[in-house]
């Protein structure tokens, strides 16, 4: 097996358990202004006592602490991250370099526009690129993440219907959707109605027709869907939805399967969000920050969150806040600019051919895995798939081995587990998305590990069910942690 090994992993307690009074890791210049007693500036009653329990550490302590913690993480620079729907691709180093340039990292969002034309041009160029890639007319970069983009899009749909006199009441969501979809619908003040998938794993047109009425504000569809299947009836779906005056929202989480191949705007989508932290290589950061721009067709443009990026006659850029039909603000300032810089850097590094190749190889890699694993792992649907593939644990479950166990055993082989138990319509789902940035050797090593686990599930199921065996810790008692939650350190 090419990938199993253990390495040094030092124990490290909490920061709060390392304190030694009197140590310090900071220094400040001496105060260069005249001073007076602090309690003359601020009434003593408004000042706090010492902060109980806050640790005192040296610079070396801090560096060692976080360096040790860092070694306990799996990460994309270490190896394949086959998480379906997450698009864990390589995060180019040059993105990090340019995002840290002084003129970007230390720019204040309230700087007068004439002093930040460089930043505004980057946002404008990114908006144009995203509009072209998705086939839409206008883009806002304001949303902080994918779910935030969903909320923004649904609120715009609501504003659109309100402008016609009736906000309507329901939003249709296929049963294969990400959990954020129904949650975003609810927080927009709409009722969620789930619609079923058919035996091909796509939206059931008859079911859709039955669910449609003039009370439906929109359908929220993921394409390719969470099974990796392109909704081949998407034009018909859009037609049915539009015939009732409803709109089509697309969850763009799976944009990596489409760049330069097909565009949402060309198959009837009215609004979609794009995850810069998936398709466009901004790092996941251990759970964020993300960035979730929203692209719309012309009919929704008046409702974009304010401000929008405007261009004056002299060619200079500004934030246009005079937007009477806007849904309002959905976040302070104008989005995660640091992520905008990185995403544009990725797009410019690729150009039109590079983005198309990225999608092609992402789809090639996923189908290569599909071909190599389809005899060992059950496939719930046999429809062609694009950038990801969903298996189930049906074969292994006969031996008492579940999808979670398979994922945990992969850790022993040196891989991060795939997405497990999602989408919900596949019992025991194993959802694999390799992305285009994995080499054939890395794919082969992963395939080898998956096949070995399938064999182990038959020959030694206990070995799989008790995995991982060579991680830093074994499985965590999650029920115990939730029963009496300990959510902070106490002295």
């Amino acid at each position, binding site marked *: 097996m090419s990938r199993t090994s253990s390495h040094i992993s030092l124990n490290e307690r909490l920061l*709060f358990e390392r304190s030694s009074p009197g140590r310090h*890791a900071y220094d400040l210049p001496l105060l260069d202004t005249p001073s007076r007693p602090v309690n003359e500036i601020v009434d003593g009653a408004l000042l706090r006592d010492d902060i109980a329990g806050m640790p005192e550490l040296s610079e070396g302590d801090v560096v060692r602490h976080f360096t040790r913690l860092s070694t306990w993480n799996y990460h994309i620079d270490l190896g394949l991250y086959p998480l379906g729907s997450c698009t864990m691709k390589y995060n180019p180093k040059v993105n990090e370099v340019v995002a840290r340039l002084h*003129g970007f990292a230390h720019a204040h969002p309230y700087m007068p526009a004439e002093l930040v034309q460089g930043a505004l041009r980057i946002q404008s160029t990114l908006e144009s690129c995203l509009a072209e890639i998705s086939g839409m007319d206008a883009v806002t970069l304001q949303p902080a993440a994918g779910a935030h983009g969903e909320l923004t899009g649904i609120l715009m749909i609501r504003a659109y219907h309100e402008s016609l006199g009736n906000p309507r009441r329901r939003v249709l969501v296929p049963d294969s959707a990400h959990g954020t979809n129904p949650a975003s619908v609810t927080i927009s003040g709409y009722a969620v109605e789930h619609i079923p998938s058919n035996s091909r794993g796509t939206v059931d047109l008859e079911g859709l027709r039955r669910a449609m009425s003039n009370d439906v504000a929109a359908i929220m569809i993921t394409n390719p869907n969470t099974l990796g299947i392109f909704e081949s009836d998407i034009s018909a779906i859009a037609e049915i939805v539009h015939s009732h005056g409803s709109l089509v929202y697309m969850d763009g989480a799976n944009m990596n399967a489409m760049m330069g191949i097909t565009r949402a705007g060309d198959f009837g989508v009215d609004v979609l969000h794009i995850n810069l932290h998936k398709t466009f290589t901004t790092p996941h*950061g251990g759970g964020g920050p993300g960035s979730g721009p929203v692209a719309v067709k012309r009919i929704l443009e008046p409702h974009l969150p304010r401000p929008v990026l405007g261009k004056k006659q002299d060619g200079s850029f500004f934030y246009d806040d005079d937007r009477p039909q806007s849904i309002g603000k959905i*976040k302070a300032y104008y989005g995660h600019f640091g992520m905008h810089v990185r995403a544009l850097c990725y797009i410019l590094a690729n150009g039109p051919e590079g983005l198309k190749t990225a999608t092609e190889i992402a789809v090639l890699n996923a189908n290569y895995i599909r071909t190599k694993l389809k005899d060992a792992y059950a496939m719930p649907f046999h429809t*062609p798939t694009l950038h990801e593939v969903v298996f189930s644990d049906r074969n292994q479950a006969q031996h008492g081995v579940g999808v979670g166990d398979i994922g945990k055993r992969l850790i022993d082989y040196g891989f991060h587990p795939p997405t497990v138990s999602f989408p919900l319509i596949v019992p025991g789902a194993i959802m694999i998305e390799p992305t*285009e940035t994995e080499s054939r050797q890395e794919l082969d090593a992963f395939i080898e590990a998956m096949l070995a686990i399938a064999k182990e599930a038959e020959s030694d199921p206990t070995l799989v069910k008790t995995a991982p065996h060579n991680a830093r810790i074994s499985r965590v008692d999650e029920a115990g*942690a939730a029963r009496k939650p300990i959510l902070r350190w106490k002295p």
Partner: protein
Amino acid sequence: MRYIPCSESDRKEMLASMGLDSIEQLFSGIPEDLRLQRLLDIPAALSEPELLDYFHKAAAENSSGHTSFLGAGVYRHHIPVIVDALIARSEFYTAYTPYQAEIAQGTLQAIFEFQTYMTQLTGMEVANASLYDGSTAATEAMLMAHRVTKRNRFLVARTVHPEYRAVMATYARNLGLDIELIGYLPSGRIDLSQLQAALKDTVAGVVAQSPNFFGTIEDTAAVAALAHSHGALSIVNVCEALSLGILRPPAEADIVAGEAQSLGVPMSFGGPHVGFLATRDKFVRQMPGRLVGMGKDQQGRRAFVLTLSTREQHIRREKATSNICTNQSLCALMATIYLATLGPKGLRETCEQNLQKTDYAVRQIQERTPHTVLFPAARFNEFVVQLQGSSNCIQKLMSRNIVPGLPVERYYPELASCILVCVTETTRREQIDALVEGLQ
């Protein structure tokens, strides 16, 4: 393309092993008429040297040579270099959300430490793993108070950051929540008598900010007492989290939410920053966002894990406490490293320098310029200056490469000719003196 390792021969061999001869065949599921028949119309690919050149030029167009007195929710503080050195480790920034606890203990323990720090700073009992930013954190606090109290009405101080109030209004409108604004006194503080008059048993929460948008420090205990007298929750919003290093924490509040950008996160033209939300233990199951708990693995060793996730969208879907999926993990890590580096003494000293330098600037402007510093109540590192006459001193200062502050009239029409000025520990005396001179 250098990010794609698949060579021409890899491609051929992989296709052959699948019984295919072209990649095109893999896209058979996409109807022919939906395929793009041309290349995308985006700029041509740039090499690495060209990329660097492109972004260096754009960054240079952003004037970084100006002395800025801008604050208003985004603060320039010194960020110790070890913050970036540590968060630039791939192990942190290229990791996914720590759902697989066995290989994500680094991120999990660091978030647990962030949660602990935020409880220490705010005086609350529990803090989440972070939210998008201060504006959405304040909004989530409002939605949480609605869930806890089952009431729909909110009283929000006009001195809460105007952009935060705008975000709250966007969310509230579609959920049938009402927001009534509460004014401020000439002192700069919230008008407690107006608040008292507006309080009824239908009010879910009172939202105040401290230091408020004008930099004024509020009596958060008095606000909380009033809110509690009508069964409403007290929500305190903190935009300038550094101030918690010296100011009495809003411990009487029920929810403390805000923005921790000032703790080691670059301003980055408005984001990404890091929202936080802290509350009392009794409300934990109504909290939005991720939470990390301390537990044990099967051998009884200490282990950290995402917990209480039955509140969240990936389990509860439309019944979740929020639609939020991500947190701002990497920015929360910056704040954690920042706090570890400064420690309690460094925080206090940094805060004292903010107070002293701001105090110096206020007194200089009062004594040496014709302008008026409004709102006499105690302040942290910001203050409002009312410029006298048809003064063109803003332009004069800009021509001297000084951005004197944020004009606030667009948010507060009654504050025409007023600017919000921020002075931090990074502002040097000669910069303050140059501002004062320009204002003369």
